């Protein structure tokens, strides 16, 4: 049971600043998930919390007390490593109970504790095996067991499931969630997996290049991303981006979009008049999640959908529905692909223009210059003032 505060922590490796003043607060019992692209400093931040490296600035506070100068073992933190870090020559139960050995607990008692933890993790029958005789999932559980046996104030997980196959990952994800629910211990969890982040977290922190981009509940981060980076990073498939010019009009503003391969379309957006005035005539980027882009035949109950015609590249049936890959107008960079969710029985023809319904109550707008979010339609209220407008102009 502990609160964790990371206050303006900086860390340099030589001349490279890996952590550039990180501020994060985790309440007691929080499940904090750190996400971010490879090399952004997630593991470095965990090491900083654990005390495996000294920081160049800032404080790590546990229960309000700065522990920056404390030895890792005095911080009462347990960590599960991506590599599991099991001691290869020790048996499963010795691995689990090894932290207790250092505390001078008798062998009989250690064995007992290991058995208790092994029971929770379904490892009882493997207690006397060596780590190399275990499957990946079992090793992962041993690593968790070694953390559990210590009953620490804070758990740190560095991509604990990334070496497992997809199915096992789902199982272990649920196990971890249950574990958090039962223990109520504060946890910091690093992952690359969107779904892990969304399902486990009570708070997600998105990092990029050693800086916090956004911290908030999974809902916040998903629906109201602070900038284009967060928007594209969270969610899979990731958010679609379309560039256009914003023009003020009677419902708020209209975004005029030049279609790849010619033609122009437009969407009306319920932005505030202030914003419309500020960005009138300026370049903006529209962000739409794939699930908010559906084929025109799909049901659109409320009046928040607007229809555009857009060039379709290919269809990828997945069974339940069909992924439609659309042409992008963002240029050749990494976001050069757009994805929409079509119904399984779509009759759309690749290579032609198809009708798409866009849920404008779920879109975001980003300043094309700074890439900061300027507008989240989901915060406006559920209905759009204007009815469906077929707003299309042929060039």
């Amino acid at each position, binding site marked *: 049971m502990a609160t964790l505060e990371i206050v303006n922590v900086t860390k340099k490796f030589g001349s490279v600043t890996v952590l550039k003043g990180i501020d994060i607060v985790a309440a007691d019992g929080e499940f904090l998930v750190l996400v971010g692209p490879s090399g952004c400093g997630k593991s470095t931040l965990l090491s900083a919390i654990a005390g495996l490296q000294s920081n160049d600035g800032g404080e790590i506070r546990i229960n309000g007390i700065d522990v920056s100068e404390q030895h890792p073992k005095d911080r009462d933190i*347990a960590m599960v490593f991506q590599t599991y870090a099991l001691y290869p020559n020790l048996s499963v139960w010795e691995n689990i109970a090894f932290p207790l050995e250092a505390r001078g607990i008798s062998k009989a008692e250690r064995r007992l504790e290991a058995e208790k933890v092994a029971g929770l993790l379904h490892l009882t029958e493997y207690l006397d095996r060596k780590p190399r005789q275990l499957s990946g999932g079992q090793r992962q559980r041993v690593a968790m067991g070694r953390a559990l046996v210590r009953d620490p104030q804070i758990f740190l997980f560095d991509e604990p499931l990334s070496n497992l196959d997809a199915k096992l990952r789902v199982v272990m994800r649920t196990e971890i969630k249950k574990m958090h629910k039962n223990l109520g211990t504060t946890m910091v969890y690093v992952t690359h997996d969107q779904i892990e982040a969304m399902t486990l977290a009570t708070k997600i922190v998105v990092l990029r290049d050693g800086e916090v981009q956004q911290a908030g509940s999974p809902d916040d981060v998903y629906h109201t991303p602070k900038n284009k980076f967060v928007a594209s990073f969270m969610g899979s498939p990731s958010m679609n981006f379309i560039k256009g010019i914003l023009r003020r009009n009677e419902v708020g503003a209209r975004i005029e979009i030049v279609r790849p391969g010619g033609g122009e379309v437009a969407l009306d957006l319920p932005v505030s008049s202030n914003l419309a005035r500020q960005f009138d005539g300026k370049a903006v980027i529209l962000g739409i999640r794939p699930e908010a882009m559906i084929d025109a035949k799909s049901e659109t109950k409320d009046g928040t959908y607007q229809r555009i015609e857009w060039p379709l590249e290919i269809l990828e049936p997945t069974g339940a529905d069909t992924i439609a890959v659309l042409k992008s107008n963002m240029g050749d960079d990494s976001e050069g692909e757009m994805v929409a969710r079509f119904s399984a029985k779509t009759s759309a023809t690749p290579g032609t223009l198809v009708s798409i319904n866009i849920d404008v109550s779920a879109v975001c707008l980003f300043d094309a210059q700074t890439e900061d979010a300027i507008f989240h339609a989901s915060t406006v209220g559920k209905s759009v003032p204007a009815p469906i407008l077929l707003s299309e102009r042929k060039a």
Partner: protein
Amino acid sequence: MSDMVLGKQSGRDKLFRGLVYVILGVFVLFYLTPLYVMVVTSVKSLDEILSGSLLAFPKTLDFYGWDEAWNNACVGTECRGMAPFMINSLIAASLATVIPTAVGALNGYALSLWRFKGSDLLFGMLLFGAFIPFQIVLLPMASFLGWIGWSSSLTGLTFTYIVYGLPFTTLYFRNFYVSFPPDLVKAARIDGIGFFRFFWRVALPSSVPIMIVSVIWQFTNTWNDFLFASTMTKLESATVMVALNNFVQVANGVKRYNVDMAAAIIAGLPTIAVYLIAGRYFLRGLMAGAVKG
């Protein structure tokens, strides 16, 4: 022929393989012939040696040579056989194997897994010790031993072996531990497992292969050493290699080749034993240590 790993072999592959085996066979013959000659000569009578061919198989087995070598071989005027010198060698080589291996393991462990400021510099200096030719240190070492009162004694010789073994054993263990997963040490630090506990419970038990390398290296090198042993010992503290040289050179009349050969084989037996017992780990250990460093 089909191989699980290499797949089907073409005619050229087969030819190539055959060639490799022929070359290997020639080398094996080349290295085994002297041993063969030694063994057969040691069990021939002197008459047979002088009359017959070097390579011929003995007509009758005669263990006179072995008996003489073990029980009556002379150094100077004393004819006490080889046993006392074998014991000297055994003491020196065992201590010079166990101590540098143990200390080298600890050194290598500290220099790789628990680095500290200046640990790389320290390691560099130790390496330097491994590459200084022994001839250079012979005189300074001898005078140093004289100064502390250990000159011409087995103690002094053993001490020298230990000191000069340390850079090598440290190097072996350091290079072995460098490829140890760093996360293990991190996990240990978080879990409050200290330097020595981790060494004793995890690092050392995992380093059997490199321990074997260190043991073989130290034992054979010190057992076979002639340079230090001949300069730093006197008669009663001589190792078997020094003694062997004396047996052979004591020339009173006819050279007794069978005795010489038997003595040489006896002197070499312990190292052969060490190889046979530990040898199968040797290559494995060398490889494990060689991957990184």
